[in-house]
């Protein structure tokens, strides 16, 4: 085994091992726990950096182990997987720091951070999975590792949310398993190939391929929160904010969206899908989700729930981008995978900071919060504008490419879909910004914890928030640089669509 084999494994284990070790720690061993976490974070970031460099240089990071007949365990770092891996590595760093700040003084931290790390490992595994079987393995691990995080508070409400989460995701996972089994029966589970490995399956298997596609997309759509499979996501808001943040930005929902991208491009391939004409329903569902979830978001009076519905809506951008089967749309979808993550995590970080510092949960309590917490509110504003697609934030770039992609494949309605969606996004985000900056606080804050440092909130809560907000801006402003997500997405698409 040389080093190119080892790196994908290290990438997975750099969070898995600390996670397992953290379980064994006592509650009071805060320093050790933080140290382990940060060690894992550092190792992972370095590994991801090296892999990014390597893939751009054309190196192949691949490792294989026997697993099932016809389906080995393959970890493979290609351009697409690294897109997701980098996102999870960077946001894991931010969220870990945030979580340390957020959870200070609460019980059961070892359990929390243990599962948290496993959750990230599973995400990285999902990203690096080189075939469907491996994907399934990590996908299910993700389901399981996230559950304890969702119910971390241990209240009845949290447990209810957890139940709903499990009901959806386990059912989804089972359908995914079915779909994978169908494909496995047809062609085994070979490695993902740009352009899809099912192109060689004879045409008479068309119905089987169709059913498998439906199963796979339904299974993945649960995590990608396609309506009507989204029910768990808003409920899962009872989880501690770092969890919601990670859930929404990276781990769970992205695993679903990423899986859909994988299935579309590397399993079926654009050609096969066009022959079978399978994407039309998916596009319809995604488009419906984009609009309907926005309308639902408008109804919410609870900050995190509104953010959750916004996630539902935004995830379908990614799905839509992938399903349109055009290179520009694919760039839009892929880049939104990153952008949405960064922006949404910013918003959740802010929501968590409001909650921890001032006890603000409801939108109506946000009046004038910008005077009390200007930096956090600035970050929130950046995130909200990004979600709306206002330049110069990252969201604008994705939206531009998605809309252009729709035109490119001869679906001009997509442009107007994004217009309407942008308007709705503005309708549910800008009032918050207005409240924060321009309204005058009407009452006392529900609770006010002024930290001793004199900062507006705990530093551990503030710094990751500002970091991701800054990233949101930079990804929009510096979109043209080759190393940015946009450049990387174009690299992926160049490899996926050999023209």
């Amino acid at each position, binding site marked *: 085994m040389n080093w190119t084999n080892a790196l994908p494994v290290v990438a997975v284990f750099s969070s898995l091992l600390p996670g397992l070790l953290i*379980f064994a720690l006592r509650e009071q061993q805060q320093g050790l726990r933080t140290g382990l976490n940060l060690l894992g974070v550092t190792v992972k970031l370095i590994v991801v950096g090296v892999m990014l460099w390597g893939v751009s240089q054309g190196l192949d990071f691949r490792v294989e*182990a*026997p*697993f*099932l*007949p016809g389906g*080995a*365990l393959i970890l493979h770092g290609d351009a697409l997987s690294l897109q997701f891996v980098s996102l999870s590595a960077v946001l894991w760093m931010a969220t870990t720091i945030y979580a340390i700040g957020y959870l200070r003084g609460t*019980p*059961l931290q070892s*359990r929390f951070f243990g599962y948290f790390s496993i959750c990230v490992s599973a995400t990285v595994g999902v990203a690096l999975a080189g075939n469907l*079987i491996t994907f*399934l*393995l990590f996908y*299910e*691990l993700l*389901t*399981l590792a996230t*559950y*304890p995080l969702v*119910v*971390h*508070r*241990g*209240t009845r409400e*949290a*447990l209810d949310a*957890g*139940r709903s989460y*499990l009901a959806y995701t*386990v*059912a989804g*996972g*089972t*359908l995914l*398993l*079915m779909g994978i*089994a*169908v494909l*496995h*029966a*047809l062609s085994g589970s070979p490695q993902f190939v740009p352009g899809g490995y099912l192109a060689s399956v004879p045409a008479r298997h068309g*119905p*089987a391929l169709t*059913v498998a596609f439906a199963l796979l997309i339904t299974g993945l759509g649960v995590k990608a929160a396609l309506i009507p499979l989204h029910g768990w996501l808003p409920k899962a808001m009872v989880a501690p904010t770092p969890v919601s943040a990670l859930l929404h930005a990276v781990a769970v929902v992205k695993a679903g969206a990423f899986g859909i991208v994988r299935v579309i491009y590397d399993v079926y391939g654009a050609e096969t899908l066009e022959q079978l004409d399978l994407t039309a329903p998916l596009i319809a569902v995604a488009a419906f989700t984009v609009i309907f979830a926005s309308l639902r978001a408008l109804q919410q009076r609870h900050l995190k729930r509104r953010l959750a519905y916004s996630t539902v809506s935004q995830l379908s951008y990614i799905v839509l981008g992938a399903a349109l089967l055009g290179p520009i749309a694919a760039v839009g979808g892929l880049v939104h995978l990153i952008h949405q993550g960064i922006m949404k995590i910013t918003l959740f970080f802010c929501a968590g900071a409001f909650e921890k510092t001032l006890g603000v949960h409801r939108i109506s309590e946000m009046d004038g919060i910008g005077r009390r917490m200007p930096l956090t509110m600035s970050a929130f504003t950046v995130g909200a504008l990004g979600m709306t697609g206002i330049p110069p934030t990252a969201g604008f770039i994705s939206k531009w490419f998605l809309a252009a992609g729709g035109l490119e494949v001869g679906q001009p309605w997509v442009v107007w879909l994004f217009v309407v969606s942008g308007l709705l996004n503005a309708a549910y985000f800008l009032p918050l910004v207005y409240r924060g900056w321009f309204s005058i606080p009407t009452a006392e804050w529900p609770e006010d914890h002024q930290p001793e440092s004199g900062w507006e909130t705990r530093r551990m809560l503030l710094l990751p928030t500002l970091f991701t907000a800054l990233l949101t801006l930079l990804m929009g402003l510096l979109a043209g640089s080759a190393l940015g997500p946009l450049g990387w997405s174009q690299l992926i698409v160049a490899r996926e669509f050999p023209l």
Partner: protein
Amino acid sequence: MNYALASLAIPFTVALLTLLLQRRSEANPIVPAITVLATAVSLVFAGLALETQAVSGAVSHLNVGGWDSPLAIRLRLTPLKALLLGFVALIHLLTGLYAWRAKPKIARDYWPLSALLHTSLAALILSADIFNLYVTLELLSLSAVALVCLSGPKAYTPALYYLLLSLGASLCYLMGVAVIYGQYGVLDMTVLAGIMEADHSTRFALLLMTAGLMLKGALWPLHLWLPEAHTYAPTPVSALLSGLVVKGPLFILWQLWNNLAPEALAREMGPLFAAGGVVALVSGGWSAFRAPFIKTLVAYSTVAQLGYALMGLGLLLFLQERIYAVALWLFVLAHGLAKVSMFLAAGEMQTLLGSKRVTAMRGATQTIPITMSAFAIAGISLIGMPPTGGFLAKWSLLEPLFTQANHWPWASGVLLGTFVSAAYVFRAIALGFYQAPMSREPRHFDRVSQWLALLPALLVGLMAFAGQDLIAWMAGVTQT
């Protein structure tokens, strides 16, 4: 063959020996040690038998005492049987270790009885003629019932029900044996395999034997006795009953239909078995979901999981493809390990939390994390999520179904089974995540027994990583 015989003889000797030792003093501390040690040795021998058998791939026969057929007790060893011998010894070892550590102390009669159970299982596995099977079945039932009784008067009623039904079932089986002998004049299974025909009396005989075995093996719908018996038995006994005892009749059933019955009959019977399996999955799962007590939940889950096995058997008979036999035996192995873990964990919980209700598991992840992990991992294997053994088995059942479009509907059975299993497993796990009342510290906190509960869970939890080799090897093993 000698290794296998040793693996059979050792527990038998120990059963007698411990019986003698028990007589002399009230609670002899050597007895558990001897039993456990002997089980370990038996395991080693089973392993050796497996190794030789797997290497040679051969089938060996032995006529006990040198008598000739038909009067002789004929034993037969195949790789699968060797595997099962090892499995039986392994489960016995795990439960034995747990019983040794268990607090409060288990009744001293556990040791000879469990050794006897071990013996009868080993004999059942090795037996090569259908009458011997009857005897070993009876032995198995008697020792199992006796074991159930160990937990005191509260277990007498379920034990008695178990015994009576079991006796009735044995007699059904024996009636079938009589009919077959009357028809063919042969008891030896290898001989019978070639000559059985699909006539009325054979059908009737097979039916009688099947009904008896289903009752003994608690296969739906004849499972009604199982939940109570398993619930009221002492913890290690529950583990043995669920993990091993119900598998004995299943093994016979498999031999009966897979080896003896004419293919035409098997094809007819297959869908019935498979359908029964699906219903078992759903109804057993539902009962487990609604069960008020932890052990009842686990017991009903056995009923449900046997549905998978039944489904595997049915599909094997119906479609006549080897891979379903692999699925069947993978289920048995995975379920055995998982169930041992679950029952031991359930027992731990009853002792530590001081209540047998499922609701007592509130906050268990905080108070007894290791036990809870054991329960959870084993449960996840029951659901069949990767990379557990349950997943491996489910996969080998599911994947071949998709190769032909007209078999697809059966996959929905697996789908249903997964949903229902997930429902009852997560019902329990979810309770564990409630905020625990922090003040209540568990009593008798014994780390070793918790880890003993966790060990089989870990084994089964990571079983799929050996999936490729395991399936390939099992495919070879189940040939004979």
